[in-house]
């Protein structure tokens, strides 16, 4: 009997173990993959590494673009359960109509944004409404809603340097400016981070950084100079009621852009409200006929080719000259002028005569040497090359038009670069906006290195022409209003007619007034161009743009602590700031 019992017991035990063995085989071999996945899902939480763009600073480390952490509200439509009262409150806090929010509850979608990048205050209010901050038995969290942290690009300076900095879209995708051009440095690829968690959902430290930041960019611009330039442009715009304006300040020796501004401008934090004409970086994307500022080409070319001397006479007494059936006038009758006076008084007649002496091949050669008709290579998106016709395509009137800055199209940046060549002794510099790029830890990634400087004119010609340009702002010149107290200015005015779209001829009331120069003339700290589009009341560059140059230069020299040249002691070194 005992033996029988023992057999039954043993059999039961064996079967029991066999059943367990079968179940274990099922769990560990046949369903291993599915169950392992399930366990992993319960135990491991995967989160995206939060990718943040690098910051953008000016040359002194002042922030122009940073990130702030905000939260975005989403919903899982399958789980959403919100009562009418809460919905009303939510709608009021978000400033969105209830129907608009409800339209986002689509049962087929498990993830829908309700509102993105909420301000901290709004996020706090929403959390209170949805009981996310204090979950109790009486008021459990409203199901189906959640927050995701997101970075918002913030531009603390608003409109300042808007055309340089550029902006990003809602998903931080680059749209304009440095943000677009240097996106590959600012952006960084993300990844995943794995957290262990327990049954209640509490997570353990992974020991891995959950945020990755892109490289920081240091620009060549200076916030102080940029502010001075923009403030004065605004004033001039209001005074002359121009439709637009541009100004560029550049270090003539290095090509560093110290300030670059356009008007109208836009607030980088509100790209959605910006108009198309506000976004345009006119300084590099718009061309205009430069007018008299282009006389630098025939002037330096004539000296370089020894076609004239400083005292070569030009008879401008008639006040006009006929070229290819077209009559070119001077603003006033000047009489007999020397080469120097032709430039000082900006005589069109004299300039045409110089141009004829030089010939079209030489004019074209020097225009190309100065970089006209080609992009400067500035590290900003959208730069255009402008144009100058090849000599074989010149019409009969071209030899009269091109020496005085007509029938050519240039950007303000090309002009300021050409004048920088006079300022620095004859070299063409590379304009650039980014100084260096570093990792968040400060390791260098990129630093601007200039290519070999290209000499466009001899040092002697540059020095002689610099002296001629000084006379432009002196008594008898066209831009006495551009003279700066305490320092000598060398520069040139420009007044160009715009084409009337209706008649396809030069307009009689639409002009572009400009002034370009450098200061102090003998030891330039910067080259500056001011271009005013369609001023009302006055048209001449010396009257409209010259005083803007003076105001900017006065304040900038003071900001840079540049000593006056009329000081009593010359052997002095500036130490205070």
């Amino acid at each position, binding site marked *: 009997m005992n033996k029988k019992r023992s057999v039954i017991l043993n059999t039961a035990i064996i079967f029991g173990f066999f059943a367990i063995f079968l179940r274990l085989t099922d769990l560990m071999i046949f369903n291993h993959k599915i169950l392992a996945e399930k366990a992993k899902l319960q135990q491991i939480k995967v989160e995206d590494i939060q990718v943040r763009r690098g910051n953008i600073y000016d040359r002194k480390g002042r922030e122009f673009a*940073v990130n702030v952490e905000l939260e975005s509200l989403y919903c899982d439509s399958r789980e959403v359960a919100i009562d009418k009262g809460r919905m009303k409150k939510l709608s009021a806090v978000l400033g969105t109509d209830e129907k608009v929010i409800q339209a986002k509850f689509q049962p087929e979608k498990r993830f829908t944004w309700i509102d993105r990048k909420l301000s901290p205050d709004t996020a706090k209010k929403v959390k209170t409404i949805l009981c996310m901050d204090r979950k109790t038995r009486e008021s459990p969290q409203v199901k189906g809603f959640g927050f995701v942290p997101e970075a918002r690009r913030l531009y*603390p300076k608003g409109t300042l340097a808007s055309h340089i900095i550029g902006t990003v879209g809602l998903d931080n995708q680059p749209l304009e400016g440095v943000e677009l051009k240097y996106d590959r440095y600012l952006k960084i690829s993300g990844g995943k981070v794995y957290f262990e968690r327990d049954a209640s959902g509490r*997570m353990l430290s992974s020991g891995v950084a959950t945020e990755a930041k892109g490289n920081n960019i240091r620009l060549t611009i200076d916030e102080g100079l940029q502010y001075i330039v923009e403030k004065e442009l605004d004033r001039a715009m209001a005074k002359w009621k121009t439709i637009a304006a541009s100004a560029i300040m550049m270090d003539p020796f290095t090509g560093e852009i110290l300030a670059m501004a356009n008007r109208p401008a836009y607030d980088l934090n509100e790209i959605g409200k910006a108009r198309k004409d506000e976004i345009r970086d006119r300084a590099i994307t718009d061309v205009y006929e430069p007018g008299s500022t282009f006389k630098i080409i025939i002037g330096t070319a004539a000296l370089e080719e020894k076609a004239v001397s400083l005292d070569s006479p030009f008879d401008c007494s008639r006040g006009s000259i006929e070229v290819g059936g077209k009559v070119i006038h001077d603003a006033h009758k000047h009489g007999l002028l020397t080469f120097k006076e032709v430039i000082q008084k900006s005589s069109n007649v004299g300039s045409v005569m110089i141009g004829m002496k030089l010939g079209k091949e030489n004019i074209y050669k020097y225009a190309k040497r100065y970089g006209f008709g080609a992009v400067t290579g500035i590290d900003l998106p959208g730069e255009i090359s402008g144009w100058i016709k090849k000599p074989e395509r010149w019409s009969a009137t071209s030899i009269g038009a091109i020496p005085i800055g007509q029938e050519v199209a240039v950007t303000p940046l090309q002009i300021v670069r050409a004048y920088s060549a006079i300022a620095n002794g004859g070299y063409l510099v590379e304009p650039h906006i980014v100084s260096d790029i570093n990792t968040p830890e400060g390791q260098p990634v990129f630093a601007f290195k200039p290519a070999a400087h290209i000499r466009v004119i001899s040092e002697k010609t540059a020095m002689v022409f610099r002296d001629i340009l000084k006379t432009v702002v002196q008594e008898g010149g066209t831009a006495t209003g551009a003279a700066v107290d305490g320092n000598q200015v060398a520069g040139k005015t420009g007044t160009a007619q715009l084409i009337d779209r209706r008649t396809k001829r030069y307009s009689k009331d639409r002009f572009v007034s400009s002034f370009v120069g450098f200061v102090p003339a003998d030891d330039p700290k910067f080259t500056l161009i001011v271009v005013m589009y369609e001023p009302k009341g006055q048209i001449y560059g010396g009257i409209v743009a010259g005083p803007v140059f003076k105001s900017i230069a006065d304040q900038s020299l*003071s900001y840079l602590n540049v000593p006056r040249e009329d000081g009593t002691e010359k052997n002095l*070194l500036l130490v205070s700031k």
Partner: protein
Amino acid sequence: MLSLFHKPLCIACLLFGLFGLIWLRSSVVAVAYDLRNIEEKKMEVLKDRKALLADRARIMSLGKIDVSFRDAQGEGKCAAGYIFPDRVRVIHIKRNTGPEPYRASLEIGSKK
């Protein structure tokens, strides 16, 4: 005799070691939880820091200071905003040509 004494000691050590390991493991897990809490707090603090830095950059911008200055002075009194230093009053010192130590700043301020 020794083996009789050693046996319980070994078992006790084994049990102590076993419980020690369990205690150690649970402590490590507790530390990992604490670390995670600290990481979350750090993230919150960093978030606030970023917001404060952005605020500081906005407030310290020259445009903002200029507007505040104009508001404080009254538009009529100081419509120009910033007053840049008069360059005549910029302090200069003589260029130091020799190898002697740099002392000029002390000499400028001294009154005899």
